[in-house]
């Protein structure tokens, strides 16, 4: 027993004392995701940071951004894809889907394919995650099941998240990046949720990325957490990004 203790002690002690790492001494993989865009002001700023930091992220975009007739949101999708990021659907309008009728929910899930189908990977994130969670209320669970089958029938895999930065909340985001780093440890890595419609996120994402890396964690593509993406073809590259990162 003493021999085992002597053998394991240096490793455990190092793990406990390693600066920046989690209390268990481990570091984890995380994938960055950004919801609710594209936004003409903040998405380009965030793309600049991602390029500078050589990070590949996933953008869950809202279909309604493409109804105005403007070319700008499409140009942003071109840039997102050209720089090697993934694009998923965040449905058409940011509704709680279990509060819609099944017909309305179906329409809201399917409409983005008409507008931006060629850009989309087969992944979707429901607004508020509504429909994707388990409920202890049988009636609500039935509604959740209906919404999730609509997502599946539309050809999407639902992608949730593990670490919520609460970057939309003016009070909670004051706790960043510490709150995010704690969640990364508690959840043992995973998918990080942010929003590219927030001025605060555009202003701070670079320091958050640096904090993740300083803690020893690795920022990876979403395909590390969604096996279906690893099996599908990588996003079409329109122009060669300056910092190409292999997935």
């Amino acid at each position, binding site marked *: *027993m*003493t021999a085992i*203790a*002597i053998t*394991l*002690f240096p490793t*455990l*002690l190092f793990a*406990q004392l390693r600066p920046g790492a*989690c*209390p*268990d001494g481990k570091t984890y993989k995380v994938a960055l995701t950004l*919801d*609710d865009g594209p936004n003409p002001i903040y998405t380009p700023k965030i793309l600049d940071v991602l390029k500078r930091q050589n990070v590949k992220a996933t953008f869950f975009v809202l279909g309604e951004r493409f109804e105005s007739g403007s070319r700008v949101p499409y140009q942003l999708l071109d840039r997102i894809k050209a720089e090697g990021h993934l694009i998923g659907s965040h449905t058409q309008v*940011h509704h*709680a889907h279990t509060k819609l009728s099944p017909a309305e929910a179906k329409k809201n899930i399917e409409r983005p394919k008409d507008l931006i189908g060629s850009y989309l990977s087969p992944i979707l*994130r429901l*607004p*508020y*995650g*509504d429909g994707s*969670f*388990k*409920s*202890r*209320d049988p009636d*609500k669970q039935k509604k959740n099941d209906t919404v999730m089958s609509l997502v599946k029938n539309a050809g999407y895999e639902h992608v949730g*998240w593990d670490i*919520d930065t*609460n970057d*939309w*909340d*003016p*009070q*909670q985001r004051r*706790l960043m990046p510490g709150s995010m780093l704690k969640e990364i*440890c*508690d*959840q*043992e890595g995973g998918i990080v*949720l942010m*929003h590219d419609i927030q*001025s*605060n996120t555009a202003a701070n994402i670079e320091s958050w990325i640096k904090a993740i890396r300083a803690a020893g964690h690795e920022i990876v593509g979403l395909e590390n957490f969604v096996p279906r993406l690893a099996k599908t073809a990588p996003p079409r590259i329109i122009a060669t990004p300056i910092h190409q990162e292999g997935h």
Partner: protein
Amino acid sequence: MKFLILFVSILMTSTLAQAAKKNLAKDSFTAWSETPSEIWLGILKTEKGYEPEARLAHYEISSMSKKSIALPRELQGREVIRVFTATDGAVVVTQQRVEQGDKPLVNFYSKKTSAWTPLGEIPCESPLKIEAESTALNTTCERDALTTELRFPLKQHKVDVKAKSLRPIPSLETLELGQDKKPIRLEARSL
């Protein structure tokens, strides 16, 4: 032997850290309003993979009687972000706070009838603060780094402006109640 003791203590620390991880359910206080005679609390139960479940709790301080109050179906999935003691009940502000905030809904809960009455929504997804004056809620709203002030009239309902009220940051896990400062821990499922 010293090595062994140190090893065991490190192992115990790691085990405790593991216990705090991932899927364990967590209850927390999310809002609070206290007068000398009663306390209203917003409570949130979270567990990974499950929808958050919020409820309201009411304490009569003189009798220490307590009542756990479920939110109505239309408020399912929302969190109680503020509660204000009002005449004959409470003004309760809830918000969908998973993934993204929505516009907070304001309801009145009647102690007499146990009924919930919707009063409307505050047009602000990112409220910096919500404070009460006698017959209205005043919200400081943030959007694109700019703040605006919004006033939400409470119709015939009247808030007790002397009540201590709080939106804990981050959520409280224990409270001290009444004159004897009796601590209440949510982990004990005392509510």
